[in-house]
């Protein structure tokens, strides 16, 4: 139906953010990090926007919940993989994609630990991150699966 003008796309031409780490961990790179490492990076690169301990904000605090934000990323989100991917592609807001994979793992570990979802000493990596049992995981109704495009 079209003129067929798409050009072949090779794997090396695809930037990492054109994919997303999947909830089961597919797409996670090598490397890893812990809350301790993450804590230092957080203080340097994240605290101005999200608060000293991650619960103060002003921007959607990833630790909580509290009166500012009912959906803290490190507790409300169903999958921990999302934390890694989102931080790596998008944060910090003024320098997105500047973090290394290790840094992103460490920051995910810091946020998860601050929410009490993992232990302070737990390393987050390609194997452990998808295994994190997010407390809210089974608390979502999938409206698309249930009723398609009909508004809920």
């Amino acid at each position, binding site marked *: 139906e079209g003129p067929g003008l798409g050009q072949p796309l090779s794997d090396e031409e695809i930037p990492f953010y054109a994919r997303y780490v999947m909830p089961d961990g597919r797409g996670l790179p090598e490397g890893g990090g812990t809350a301790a490492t993450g804590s230092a990076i957080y203080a340097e690169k994240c605290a101005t926007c999200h608060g000293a301990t991650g619960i103060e904000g002003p921007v959607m605090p990833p630790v909580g919940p509290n009166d500012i934000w009912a959906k803290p990323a490190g507790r409300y989100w169903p999958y921990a993989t999302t934390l890694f991917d989102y931080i790596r592609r998008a944060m910090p807001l003024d320098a997105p994609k500047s973090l290394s994979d290790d840094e992103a793992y460490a920051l995910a570990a810091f946020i998860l630990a601050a929410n009490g979802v993992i232990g302070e000493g737990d390393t987050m990596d390609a194997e452990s991150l998808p*295994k994190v049992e997010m407390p809210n995981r089974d608390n979502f109704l999938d409206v698309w699966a249930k009723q398609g495009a009909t508004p809920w």
Partner: protein
Amino acid sequence: AGGGAALAGATMPRAARAQGAIPEWATVAGERARGYGMPAEAEAHVQRAILEPFADVAPQFSLSGTPHHRLRGTITPNGLHFEVHHGGRPNIDPERHRLMIHGLVERPLQFDLGALERYPMVTATHFLECSGNSLFNAIMPDPMQAGCDLLHGLLSNTEWTGIPMNVLLDEAGVKPEGRWLVATGGDGPSLARSIPVEKLMEDGMLALYQNGERIRPEQGYPMRLLLPGFEGNMNVKWLTSLWATDAPAHTKHESGEYTEILADGSSVKFTFAMGVKSVITHPSATMTMSGSGLYELSGIAWSGAGPIRKVEVSADGGASWAEAELQGPVLPRALTRFRLPWAWEGAPSLLMSRAEDATGAVQPTREAWKARYDASNFLHYNAIQAWQITANGEVQNVYA
């Protein structure tokens, strides 16, 4: 969850960080929001094509054509709606502007903007076309090589919102002997046209909004007359007066500039409605084909007499025709986009489009159109446009 660095032999697929190049704009925070947007800088060339035929002495007399070869869809954005100015764009204070209705009426009245805001409104999408649109094709002995901005740009299509004229005229009470209303604009030359009362009562609109926002200065801010299907000049901008009379005043524009001399030397006057017409905009003159293969021919069709019924397209200079798909909703007196897939073989081709409206009227050939008029006439040109595609893909304006 567990352990140190990723373990060799884990069943989980491991990906090295993908290597595709990251453009710089994906690595920085973007710009802050702005109150009123503008097109991208890379699109700064998408402008109206301005002609000032008397630039040295009277630059305020100008024609500014919509660049249809750079647009898709049917709506013209307000910033690119064509302008024809007989005395420039006036700088009107909306607080002091008023619309007067007087002459052969029971109650001479005036309305300011505040009062008009309370009136019932209607919304309708309509084209406006200057009756001088396509003038170069009408009179130039050899076809000019120019884009659809210069060739056919005195045509645009927007969504208008305003007060049905019959509501305002009924309030003033036009007397039975008031058969015409002379509409006058608030511009320097006080442009005036005589309008039949029937048209005003049927679908005339005091237009206040265009594509949702207040009409812009070059389109008649703060208000203009809209007469769907009638030649652009009658849709008086900056409307300030409607004067009911028993006969047309034979104003300047209806005496000379907007009358047409016929082949026999006589003239026609009060030629109000615009004829059926169409233009293929993609591809069109000044463009170059990007190699052989499948294209979508795309263009616009319109008629002052009602909705478009059919558009046919030929790629062999009129020997054979195929019916194009019309993009719905097909609205009366509004631009209708037509499209047709077409495989260019890389050989010379002669593209044409031929529109038919709901009254059954069909576009004439250029030859037939020329035969009706004096050689000097460039008004109401609605002949079939032909584009020649050369073997090396250049698209040229031709008479055929």
